[in-house]
């Protein structure tokens, strides 16, 4: 145990500590050994590098958007260009960053280890998943370089099918391919979690991170194909004019909306559920306490996945759906908020009477709790029909989804990266800098997006690059916040890279956390465990951990 009580970090003696001689990073050498790997950990690192690239690309577009919105006049870019900016920002951030963020990086790395397996069920499909991601990313980059797409990330018809001559087909095909990357990741996770748990690793002994990814994987497998067929139909409509969404040929644009949102609503749960899984792990570790109401959190993950399929038309309230439909979907939307709320209460009760310390992952987790709650609650406001009529397509919506996706999901992703960074790399990042980055991100985020709630409430429409001058102050605040936020995101890029060479050696379990991943070396061996672990204890069993010696805990591998 560490001598000071303000941190639980317990590192080996840095004078003598070294990285383990054999680990998955040095197991094989050469570019090809990485590009043709079947090792889930290496694939996770490949993904981490790729999504970081796309995150910063999407961030550049965000910067340009906020720059334009500094002034009420449309003076930085032309209207069409502005449309392209927010479209590319959305497409890249949703499909190339948020959807794969936790599952493809942290999930790929950890799920086999957390359940006591040597790898995922289908390693080759896992690698294929990454190549599909890269191919889809390339198509998206191609669309960008060729001139961009300006339909919004939502590809609304008949705008996308008939009234634009931008690169809708290229972008649509790119998203189609990325969709299959997502499907294969989810498929792999489901089979792995069902069939490859170690002896004694019963469903209710699994870490909650595994439950969350399992629920997200169900959504990936069942929801994404509907997006795939929708995009195929858009491409067919643009190229050979089949008329399925074209009113002049007898088609219905609302059909597109139904099919598109049937995926895109579960997509937001695909994005947030793995993040919630991270938060369960982080809050438990840094409160030194088992997660309050384990079964409730586990079941609510699955409930979010199930109910998430029943609410998609709340994105369509003003598009011409029937009153009856709107009522039903509004009611169901209220219901889907309940499991998320259950989780939030459980996290709070986990912390109660726990022994809380404020390492960086915990700081991000705290940020998540507050910001996700605000984002989630504003979602409930939007689910109410009367409010939605006024708030939809305004900056209120923009603020709402950025609170849940950036204040929620991205913070959870950063919490996870920091939490498992020592496990993945064997090195610790510099704590002071990381705390600074966390605080900077939190301040920058609030400054960027809180004004947007007010802007939306006051009536500023979204996707407009000019606005009435009375909105300028709030927009300037928002852009200022975006600058701070950008700095907050660049800092981890720098110090995490720095830590790869100069960071402190982490040892097996710097956080003194429970979980199979903390009982093996950092970085892990290629085959994860020297012998198959047998589990005879519950998840988050800190008492069990306290009574074990260092040696007993690490003989697993």
């Amino acid at each position, binding site marked *: 145990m560490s001598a000071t009580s303000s941190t639980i970090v317990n590192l080996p003696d840095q004078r003598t500590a070294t990285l383990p001689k054999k680990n998955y990073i040095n197991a094989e050498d050469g570019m090809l050994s990485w590009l043709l790997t079947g090792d889930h950990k290496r694939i996770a690192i490949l993904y981490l590098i790729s999504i970081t690239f796309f995150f910063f690309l999407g961030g550049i577009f965000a910067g340009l958007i906020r720059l334009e919105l500094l002034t009420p006049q449309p003076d930085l870019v032309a209207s069409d260009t502005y449309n392209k900016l927010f479209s590319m920002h959305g497409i890249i951030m949703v499909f190339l960053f948020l959807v794969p963020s936790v599952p493809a990086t942290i999930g790929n790395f950890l799920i086999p280890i957390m359940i006591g397996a040597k790898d995922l069920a289908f390693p080759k499909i896992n690698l294929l998943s990454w190549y599909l991601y890269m191919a889809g990313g390339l198509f998206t980059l191609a669309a960008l370089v060729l001139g961009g797409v300006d339909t919004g990330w939502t590809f609304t018809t008949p705008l996308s099918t008939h009234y634009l001559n931008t690169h809708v087909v290229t972008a649509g095909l790119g998203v189609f391919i990325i969709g299959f990357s997502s499907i294969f990741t989810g498929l792999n996770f489901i089979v792995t979690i*069902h069939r490859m748990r170690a002896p004694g690793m*019963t469903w209710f002994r699994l870490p909650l991170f595994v439950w969350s990814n399992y629920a997200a994987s169900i959504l990936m497998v069942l929801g994404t194909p509907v997006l795939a067929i929708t995009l195929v139909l858009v491409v067919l409509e643009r190229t050979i004019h089949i008329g399925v969404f074209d009113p002049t040929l007898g088609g219905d644009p609302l059909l597109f909306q139904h099919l598109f949102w049937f995926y895109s609503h579960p997509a937001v749960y695909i994005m947030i559920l793995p993040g919630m899984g991270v938060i369960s792990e982080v809050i438990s570790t840094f409160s030194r306490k088992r997660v309050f109401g384990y079964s409730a959190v586990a079941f609510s993950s699955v409930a979010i996945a199930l109910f998430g399929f029943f609410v998609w038309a709340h994105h369509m309230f003003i598009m011409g759906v029937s009153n009856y439909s709107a009522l039903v979907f509004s009611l169901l939307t209220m219901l889907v908020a309940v499991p998320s709320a259950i989780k939030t209460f459980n996290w709070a009760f986990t912390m109660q009477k726990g022994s809380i310390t404020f390492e960086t992952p915990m700081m991000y987790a705290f940020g998540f709790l507050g910001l996700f709650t605000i984002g989630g609650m504003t979602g409930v406001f939007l689910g109410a029909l009367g409010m939605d009529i006024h708030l939809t397509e305004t900056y209120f919506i923009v603020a709402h989804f950025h609170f849940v996706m950036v204040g929620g999901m991205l913070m959870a992703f950063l919490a996870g990266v920091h939490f498992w960074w020592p496990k993945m790399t064997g090195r610790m990042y510099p704590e002071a800098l990381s705390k600074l980055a966390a605080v900077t991100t939190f301040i920058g985020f609030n400054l960027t997006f809180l004004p947007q709630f007010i802007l939306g409430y006051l009536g500023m429409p979204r996707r407009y690059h000019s606005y009435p001058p009375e909105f300028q102050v709030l927009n300037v605040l928002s852009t200022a916040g975006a600058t701070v936020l950008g700095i907050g995101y660049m800092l981890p890029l720098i110090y995490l890279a720095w830590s790869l060479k100069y960071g402190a050696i982490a040892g097996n379990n710097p956080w003194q956390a429970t979980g199979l991943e903390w009982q093996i070396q950092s970085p892990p061996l290629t085959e994860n465990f020297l012998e198959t672990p047998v589990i005879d204890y519950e998840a988050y069993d800190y008492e069990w951990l306290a009574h074990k010696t260092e040696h007993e805990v690490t003989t697993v591998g």
Partner: protein
Amino acid sequence: MSSEHHDPANITNPEHADHHIVGPKTYAIIFVTLLTFTGITVAAAFVDLGILNPIIALAIASTKAVIVILFFMHVFYQSKLIKLTVASGFFTFLVLITMTLSDYMSRAWGLW
């Protein structure tokens, strides 16, 4: 040894369910049944049964599909996990169809 690792939450019982080898006789019966149903559905299309025509056509097609799934695809002999998986696929499909349909129907009472 199994009692040590008994997991009451694992309701899908995937262990050792997949050993039954389905033989040619079973397949032949299914084959003939499928062809018969095909004939019936073609014949039924020529008879005016009003609103029942599409219902019968879909019912026959669904029956054929179920037989193919249960016997050609072995699901009858497989674990609960596989059965639940198949069911969940069709459930989600039905959610897509019915909930979207409910929007269209409620905008056009009497026309459906």
